[in-house]
């Protein structure tokens, strides 16, 4: 990139994002905006998504000691919360929350990375470029969801005793020490599907490609798709749940379940959660 180029594109970097019309089916490089809808009522907290993510994205198994030090690398984790008002027993069960990178539109991590290793793609993903990363860990410090995971150790040399490396997905880089990583919405799958679709002069069909967690989820609690396409299931769900990608505070009916986590910090996440339901009369 030359200086001229940098200056030409400066206004792009200075744009307030997201802005309406940022994603458009008619624009060549922003006809996709990948988004999720996650129904917390039918998520059972079974961890199938987590394991699928380990398999798909070459996540290292860190072992007990490192897990204890909080150096675990699960890109998607299942959080289990008890009710704050619980007396003796959790009579309404637990609250499970699968938490992965929310692919924020106004991502706090992107602005602070000194080297631009994390940046926004035209598809609305928050890309993490491993070999550009110098490991300042500022992005993790600034991530409100704490879904960025830093390679504190040289996992390639320890985490996969032979022949476990044979299982590694060749489409995903294995990360060495000193690098930040996070959920990518399985971008390797998205890229492949987009390439296939482009060859066939079409857009990626709804449901043609899903991340590993979505594919595994036994209850199909996660819906994934291109929110720019009004006919995709995920776009319909967002609309139905009255969650607007471009708004930071949703004005919605009380009966509607959609919300985005920590919306008040205005990161404009791409993952819509749907409230857990409990039968209070049961």
């Amino acid at each position, binding site marked *: 990139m*030359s200086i001229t180029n*940098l200056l030409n594109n400066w206004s792009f970097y200075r744009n307030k994002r997201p802005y309406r019309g940022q994603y458009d089916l008619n624009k060549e490089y922003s006809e996709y905006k990948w988004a999720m809808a996650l129904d917390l009522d039918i998520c059972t907290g079974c961890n199938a998504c987590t394991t699928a993510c380990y398999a798909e994205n070459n996540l290292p198994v860190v072992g007990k000691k490192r897990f204890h030090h909080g150096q675990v690398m699960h890109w998607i984790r299942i959080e289990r*919360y008890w009710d704050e008002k619980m007396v003796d027993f959790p009579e309404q069960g637990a609250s499970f929350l699968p938490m992965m990178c929310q692919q924020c539109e106004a991502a*706090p991590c992107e602005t602070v990375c000194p080297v631009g290793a994390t940046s926004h793609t035209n598809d609305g993903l928050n890309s993490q470029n491993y070999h550009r990363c110098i490991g300042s860990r500022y992005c*993790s410090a600034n991530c*409100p969801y704490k879904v960025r995971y830093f390679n504190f150790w040289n996992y390639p040399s320890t985490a996969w005793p032979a022949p476990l490396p044979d299982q590694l997905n060749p489409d995903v880089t294995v990360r060495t020490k*000193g690098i930040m990583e996070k959920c990518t919405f399985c971008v390797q799958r998205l890229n492949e599907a987009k390439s296939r679709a482009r060859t066939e002069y079409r857009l990626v069909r709804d449901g043609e490609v899903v991340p590993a967690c979505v594919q595994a989820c036994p209850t199909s609690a996660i819906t994934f798709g291109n929110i720019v396409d009004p006919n995709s299931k995920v776009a319909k769900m967002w609309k139905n749940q009255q969650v607007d990608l471009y708004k930071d505070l949703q004005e919605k009916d009380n009966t509607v379940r959609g919300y985005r986590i920590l919306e008040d910090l205005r990161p404009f996440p791409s993952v819509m959660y749907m409230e857990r339901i409990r039968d209070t009369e049961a």
Partner: protein
Amino acid sequence: MINTFEERDVAVEKRFIHKEKDIREDIAWAQINKDVLKSLERPRMLFWVIFIASLALFMVGVSCEIYQYQTGMGVANLDNPHVWGLYIGTFIFWIGMSHSGTLLSAILHIMHADWRKPIYRFAEAMTTFSLMTAGLFVMVHLGRVWQFYYVVAYPNERWTWPNFQSPLVWDATAIFTYLTSSMIFLYIGMIPDLAICRDNATGFRKSFYTFLSLGWMGTDRQWANFRVTYLTVACFLIPLAVSVHSIVATDFAVSQQPGWHITSFPPYFVAGALYSGCAAIITLFIVLRYVFRFEEYMTMPILEKTAKLTFAIAMVWTYLNLVEYSSTWYGDDMYAKQALIYRATGDFAPYWWMMNFLGSVVPFTLAFKRIRNNIPAMLVISILLNVGMWLERWMIVSPTFANGIYPWTWDHDQWPSLVQWGIVAGSFGWFNMLFMLFCKIFPSVSMYEVKEMVYHRSLVRKGTEDATQINPELAVEGGIAS
């Protein structure tokens, strides 16, 4: 009528100078040279002992860093999301330390507070060396330090730029600029003194000082140029110093972390920086005064002034600290409030309370003249203040990570590992080592400025008479600068 620089100086001095006796006005200039140059003589055994100890401490840090470099950041016992630890805290500490030099030499220079003259040289050295130390921490902190050059904006084969939005890029730029400027400032200010050294040295040292003194002859033209240059660089340095620490503060203030996301952070940081810097000056003041027998120059009135200055800055800092707490407390930010409560009651509470005690209560001792004049007490207090300020930086960084916005990831077990402590300790060894070398290679008291000061004091006393008339010795051995 003001026709010459000297006349102007005298006029200025007349207006601004305290009539206090902060230095004897009858010290012979040759005596000044002699006293100061004595500090450059072959060191005593004790010097080597301390030097080797510092070197050993530094090597501990180096080996820790090598271990960390080889193994990964995990050896520092950082975790997700507690990704920053002592490294960043100590980094801010050293950056803060660097502000005192600029304060003394640049700000007070412009303000014509000439009591700074005997002590600004080592303060400036401190600035340079603590910045160098701080720079090391940036490197130590990076996960892939071997790729640090990605932060530098330079045309490269990949056609990539750093992210100019990131405060870390501002940081890198600001620190680098500040480091180079303060090194230049230190060097420029030393040129007349280097010339004195040159004139008194032999052998290798002679050629060394000859090279560095850039042919300084003490001519009028040289003096004129020198003053303009020095003043210019000083003016340049002041905004730079303020901006450096403001930028370090924006590292925190622009982030979402509770407890960091505060607009008063930049002045708070600058105040804290000056505070710790002044405290460090007091410490070094006392040490140098004792070691090099600089009692004639580093006099008690100067110490007292420095202490008063420290006290004033401590109050500014305390005020800003209270502003931070109260704006958080009365504010609307649930996360920040929770983080504040956590600091006061959580795992870090002992350190947090100690920090507040050391930073805000201990300086009140400086309000008492008896304490200000008691050297051992001042030594202890100044060290305590610096401990407090170091704790402050740590308390800014760590508790926020341990108790941030997202409760699921609050800390399991976070205590800096030996590697972190080793590198922090090593940094003190490194600083100490550099400072000791400096004191033995360069005059740690500015000879020409002290001469100037003595001269002005005598002028103030005797009116505008020529100083040589009072002190005939001055005419001998080369005048103000040899």
